[in-house]
């Protein structure tokens, strides 16, 4: 029993290790990360230049860079997780994976851990940008906290979402398209005019949506300089979404099918 448990718990780590090697020792992970870095560099430079001619824009620039870091970083993690199962299915390697002694649940957990590493890498890249830009207006610690806590919860939720979609999609194209479409739908409320988002229904909608909730948190704490205790509520939906979507992704592992690769 003890041997079976330790084998079971080691299984997800074996999968995670292999996925991490495939992601970061091939050009796939670093290519995505390079794209993220280039976009963030351009945006940060333009935002800083704008803040140099109007001091009131400095805080807003930090808020924008943090929000974009969260949005792009979670997108990168989502793309990796959306490819996790459906990609194996298309490449014909899923069957080989399913016949291994590793439980399907542990396969999914291992892939989830590997996909989350993309968010961690994006976070490591974004931290120097945020730290430098936030130093001027004196919001460095708040900015880092928003990025790590708020961004981390949103990333966890979306990575699990991508994996769940990948589990049930028979093709990689469908999985990626569906995952990105869902992300865009979730991010759309954060772009609503303030009149719509400040109304009662709009405010509830923004708070219930994990992506818009995380972005709103960044705006309130960094741009409007509202204290953290007034904004803890914006962490509820990302936290719940992370827990629920991870549970769904793991539950769907029992129904993994070979699909067209059979």
């Amino acid at each position: 029993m003890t041997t079976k448990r330790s084998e079971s718990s080691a299984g997800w780590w074996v999968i995670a290790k292999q996925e991490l090697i495939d992601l970061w020792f091939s050009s796939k992970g670093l290519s995505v990360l390079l794209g993220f870095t280039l976009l963030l560099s351009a945006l940060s430079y333009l935002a800083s230049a704008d803040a140099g001619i109007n001091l009131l824009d400095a805080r807003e620039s930090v808020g924008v860079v943090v929000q974009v870091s969260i949005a792009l970083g979670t997108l990168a993690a989502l793309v990796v997780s959306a490819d996790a199962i459906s990609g194996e299915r298309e490449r014909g390697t899923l069957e080989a994976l399913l016949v291994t002694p590793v439980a399907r649940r542990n396969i999914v957990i291992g892939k989830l851990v590997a996909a989350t590493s993309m968010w961690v890498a994006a976070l490591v890249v974004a931290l120097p940008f945020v730290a430098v830009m936030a130093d001027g207006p004196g919001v460095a610690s708040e900015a880092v906290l928003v990025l790590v806590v708020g961004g981390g919860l949103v990333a966890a939720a979306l990575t699990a979402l991508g994996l769940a979609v990948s589990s049930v999609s028979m093709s990689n194209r469908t999985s990626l398209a569906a995952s990105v479409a869902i992300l865009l739908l979730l991010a759309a409320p954060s772009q609503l005019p303030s009149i719509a988002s400040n109304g009662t229904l709009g405010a509830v909608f923004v708070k219930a949506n994990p992506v818009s909730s995380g972005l709103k948190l960044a705006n309130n704490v960094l741009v409007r300089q509202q204290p953290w205790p007034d904004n803890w509520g914006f962490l509820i939906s990302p936290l719940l979404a992370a827990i629920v979507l991870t549970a769904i992704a793991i539950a769907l592992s029992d129904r993994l099918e070979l699909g067209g690769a059979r």
Partner: protein
Amino acid sequence: MTARIACLTAVVLASTFGLTSAAAAESLDDINVAVDPASQSVVLGEAFTLQVTVTNEGDEATLPLVLHVDITDPQKSTSVDPEDWTSTLSKAIGIVDSGSSLTVDWELQPISGGDFAVYAVALAAGAETLSPSNVLRVTVQDQRSLNPGGILPVAIGAPIVVGGLLLVQMRLARRSPRVPLAGTPG
């Protein structure tokens, strides 16, 4: 008869005096407001001190006065929000005695570049007029640089580091030996 004329005269004089007093109290024409310096040149974000001097050139003490600072951009024909430049828009300075002066300092910090006109105004509750000052011309220079906020090293360095890692990885992948599939010539 004489007493009646005296009383009537006293009433007329009292009324006239009262009206005169009221008119003087409600007019700030004898109040002179001056700002110093007459011109200022600063870099964006640099704070400077505006001195506002109120002089009562009239014969009577003023009503309780309030000083208010305003800022405008003559080139754009719009007013700048003074709250962007200072946290204190108005200052109550009380009564200024006849022949006396009172000087108040104001800290201003421009938040955008350009040429601005700054002036102060003395007001009093119930007064029919107000007393404006001369104009302070402020030139604010933008802080444009190739390295705004020190972001340039990070904006250039981060892509170089990640791109460099990617290049190294691609070269290592090319050098690693290829394992032939079974049944195919090596």
